[in-house]
């Protein structure tokens, strides 16, 4: 499934993460910036991929600027950005939460 619109969630404050989703056609592509990319880049991607999977999104461009966010923060920001991208802000997917 594709997303409906470009969306963004999160901030560039320390310990936060900013995620932007825009329409893509060839699967999920990542553009990740993080101070801890070497150690945690894969873990960050995995957390976001899991959220995308639970919404059955398989074609999307994901731009991520991580400022040292912990996993629960990444997950929460990812859920928000997906909901915005699907235009369903007020209907959280409870299975994910």
């Amino acid at each position, binding site marked *: 499934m594709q997303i409906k619109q470009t969306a963004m969630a999160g901030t*560039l404050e*320390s*310990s936060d993460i900013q995620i932007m989703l825009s329409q893509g056609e060839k699967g999920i592509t990542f553009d990740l910036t993080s*101070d*801890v990319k070497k*150690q945690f880049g894969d873990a960050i991607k995995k957390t976001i991929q899991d959220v995308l999977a639970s919404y059955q999104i398989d074609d999307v461009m994901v731009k991520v600027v991580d400022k*040292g966010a*912990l996993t629960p923060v990444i997950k*929460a920001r990812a859920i928000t950005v997906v909901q915005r991208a699907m235009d369903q802000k007020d209907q959280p997917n409870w299975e994910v939460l």
Partner: protein
Amino acid sequence: MEIVDIFAEGCPVQLEDVLKNRDWRVAVQDHLMQHFSTSTVVAVKLNVPGEVKNSPSIKQLFFAGWRLLLSKMSSMAVQKVTVEADRLTGPEGFFVINRELEEVKKEAIRFEEHFFLGRLFDIDVMTLHAPAYQLSRQELGFAPRTCLICSENAKECARSGKHDISALRDNINQIYTDYFVIDPVIPAWDQETVAKAATFACLAEAVTWPKPGLVDPVSNGAHQDMDIYSFLDSSLSLENYFKKCFEAGRTFRGDQLTALLSTIRPSGRFAEGRMFQVTDGVNTHKGTIFSLGILIAAYGYASRNEQSPSLSFVQTVVSRMGAQLVENDLKEKFSPSGLTDSKGDADKKVFKGNANRPSTAGEQQYQDYQLTGVRGEIAGGLRPLSTVGLKTLRESRGTTRVRLLNTLMALATSITDSTMIKRYGDPKISQQLNQWVQEFEARGGAESKGGQDYLASLDQAFIEKNLSMGGAADYLILTIFIGRLTGLL
């Protein structure tokens, strides 16, 4: 000494609250950057891991640093200041300053590295036209922030969950206890700030109400010859004197600290003259001129070379300055009337007594009761200031007025109040005073209606009996002064 749990009084927050708060912060920062497009925006908050991010003690930590940081920036033109101290997600402050981004960031890094509480602070600087969102430490050639517990990169420790949250909390509790409780650390402030803090202390004491028997904005207490305006005038007349005392301490060389006292005594006499001049001859702050002047000089000396002294060191300097006060001012001039040193000295005693008639309450009380009064307090290093004054101020909750009233009452029982004794004519009044204070505390202190009502009724009783706790008021001023310098107020 027990470690204070600064999280005990706090309220836990959810992840959602923290994330919403970040969105809010970014909105505030964006707004400030748009509005002051050529200036630098500074955002200040604490790094507090865990679900409790605000409490009365956490706010104390925040304000201690916030005040110091703002004063470091005071040479730059500050255009806007906002503080949100009560946010569930932790106290935060913002200010806008008309200086280059890099210059401000360097000052902020200096603060984070050198101030005792600096590592608890997170200071972000930003400006509208900068290439990056916020200027990082690394861009200026500084190392990234290190972890509170180990010396590794803080972000990596946080990401890997290397340390237990309780270990991090213990660490912050320890920092709070070291800074505020065991032996308070006083930053090295400049002369202007110190003199202002001293003047503020005099004014803050004066406007606190209801103080039993003392002058406040609501009642003149048991004083017919002065009112609140006398105290405003008197307080303002002292600022120059405070500056002189500070300067004398900062520039003093040598280790005979009694000489430092001799240096400031002429300034003290001059300040007394100024006080009488503005109050038309009424004694409003004579005790304060003496004790606060010495405390300021001691702090000036203890903080020379820009060191941040501990309160106990300042108190040691006070006591060394006053080492000969009791000996020189009292013992040699006024023999205690009840004492006979030896048979042969009887004549000598009478002779001495005639030669020096006590001219102050302190001298009279030494002669009558062997009480050493404020001189004894100085020689003892003003101990109740730390053991009772600052302790109560730190632990007391509520408005500034409530905290100061609780502090005043706690001090009243821990000192020998020469004003009370002079007015009552007998040191036995101390026991009565202890009972009053116990009753006040039993009714819940100044934060309760019962305690406030009791204070008002005590004020009436003091007026009827013509009593006034001037000594406790002097100690309250000293406490406010140090409280201001450490950030408790």
